[in-house]
């Protein structure tokens, strides 16, 4: 009898797992379940859909032919109960899916604070395509929008709204933007750029209530009593793994579903991958969360291979994101900050817990207008880097940091005052492509 694989989640982790399973098991029966009616699409692409840089149709990477080729049975529905002992999954429509191996690839979901007015229909978060469409629909009619939160998603929403609304307000609790990943100067560059683009940045402004008139959002009130009129409020205060199924089934769950080096959960034949999985990180010496597309893909791929009988030990690559912050292309890699950020509860999207695990390191910096490079220099290797603007060093830095290249030969020069960082790194990486 062929093996029955059930994959809960049709995001990139689920898709990568399905590909890996099919490559190893031509005869297995693969079911891909999703509670998102739009199926598989690029979540990072939603940011460019909001700004109008790509069309809706271009969010979908796969054509029908690719699904058919892999012989995947796609089911739309919500998993409501996982029964590890009975090896079956119950759906909210009453259906039952028996499995031999199951993958939890349920992703993560935006958090909402408890505040007066939070349930008003014009208060939005950005998790999926339906949210993006809701935001676009509201933004086209709105005069003024308020964005609250931090990390990449807050800025992506700000940028998207900027294309459609006359006034966009961005509220920060403290003085700094993303203070546990970016340093003060980087945060300042971002906020200055937003202000130059016409965004009203309000620092030291904690959201206290959302006020309505005739059932619609009319304004927000800050803790210090400032009132900002608006028709739309977007919240991006962080995400949490969608681990409820696993938790209720008695699996070991910390912030996410805990997995071993084979991506196996604590229950037999159940694996986890992607945003929902909390995976051991050798650099930090503990299990951490990532909300990164490429991390989710690589988890899914490894989990899929192991579900189909492989025994691949997964080693987490150094978390990397190349993203746009207020229009400035920025690479974040390795450990670059520490502590908490007042605007985020936990982790944001396109984010990694490792980025905030910086221990002892010296800092080397180089800055020309919006081009800025910050290196976190360890005893013999680079621990992390933030590169804003010119991205020529992005790829070499990724290799230097992920391969833990010995930098002893240039370390003292890197740390000298006004060191020409780019030239020094280029010399070291000349052999790289």
């Amino acid at each position: 009898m062929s093996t029955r694989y059930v994959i809960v989640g049709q995001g990139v982790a689920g898709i990568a797992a399905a590909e890996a399973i099919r490559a190893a098991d031509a005869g297995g029966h693969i079911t891909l379940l999703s509670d998102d009616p739009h199926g598989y699409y690029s979540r990072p692409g939603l940011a460019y859909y909001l700004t109008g840089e790509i069309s809706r149709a271009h969010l979908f990477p796969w054509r029908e032919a690719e699904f058919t080729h892999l012989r995947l049975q796609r089911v739309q529905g919500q998993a409501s109960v996982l029964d590890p002992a009975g090896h079956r999954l119950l759906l909210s429509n009453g259906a039952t899916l028996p499995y031999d191996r199951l993958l939890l690839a349920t992703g993560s979901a935006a958090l909402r604070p408890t505040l007066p007015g939070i349930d008003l229909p014009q208060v939005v978060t950005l998790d999926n395509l339906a949210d993006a469409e809701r935001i676009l629909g509201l933004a086209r009619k709105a005069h003024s929008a308020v964005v609250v939160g931090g990390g990449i998603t807050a800025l992506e929403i700000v940028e998207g709204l900027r294309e459609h609304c006359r006034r966009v307000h961005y509220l920060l609790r403290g003085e700094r933007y993303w203070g546990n990943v970016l340093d003060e100067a980087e945060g300042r560059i971002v906020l200055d750029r937003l202000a130059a683009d016409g965004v009203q940045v309000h620092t030291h402004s904690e959201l206290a209530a959302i006020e309505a008139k005739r059932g619609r959002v009319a304004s927000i009130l800050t803790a210090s009593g400032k009132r900002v009129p608006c028709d739309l409020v977007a919240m991006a205060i962080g995400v949490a793994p969608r681990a409820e199924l696993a938790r209720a089934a008695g699996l070991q769950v910390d912030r996410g579903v805990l997995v071993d080096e084979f991506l196996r959960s604590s229950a037999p034949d159940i694996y986890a991958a992607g945003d929902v999985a909390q995976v051991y990180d050798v650099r930090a010496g503990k299990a951490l969360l990532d909300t990164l597309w490429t991390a989710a893909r690589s988890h899914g791929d490894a989990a899929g291979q192991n579900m189909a009988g492989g025994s691949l030990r997964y080693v987490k690559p150094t978390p990397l994101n190349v993203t746009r912050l207020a229009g400035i292309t920025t690479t974040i890699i390795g450990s670059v900050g520490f502590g908490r950020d007042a605007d985020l509860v936990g982790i944001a999207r396109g984010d990694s817990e490792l980025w905030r695990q910086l221990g002892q390191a010296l800092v080397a910096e180089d800055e020309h207008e919006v081009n800025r490079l910050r290196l976190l220099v360890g005893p013999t290797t680079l621990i992390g880097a933030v590169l804003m603007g010119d991205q020529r060093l992005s790829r070499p830095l990724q290799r230097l940091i992920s391969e833990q290249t010995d930098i002893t030969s240039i370390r003292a020069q890197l740390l000298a005052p006004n060191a020409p960082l780019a030239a020094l790194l280029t010399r070291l990486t000349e052999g790289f492509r």
Partner: protein
Amino acid sequence: MTLRDLLQRDRARRTTLVTGQVTPEAGRCVQCGICTYYCPINIDVRRHAWLGEPVQESHCLTCGECVARCPRGVLHFERIELFQP
């Protein structure tokens, strides 16, 4: 742009055309689709990025639109030896 600039650009493009191909680095790609969206001749560049395979389609113009538009530096031109033994 002066005529000389134009000619130089054209020469650079011809050189790329005969010796370069667009090569992706799958480990950076988030499948956002911008490359495919902007390809003037509708090559599904994103699919190549997913598979980590160079765009070898003979009708690729090597115009560089996808390389320049990719917000994450996934794509670059790689030299190819045309006359391999």
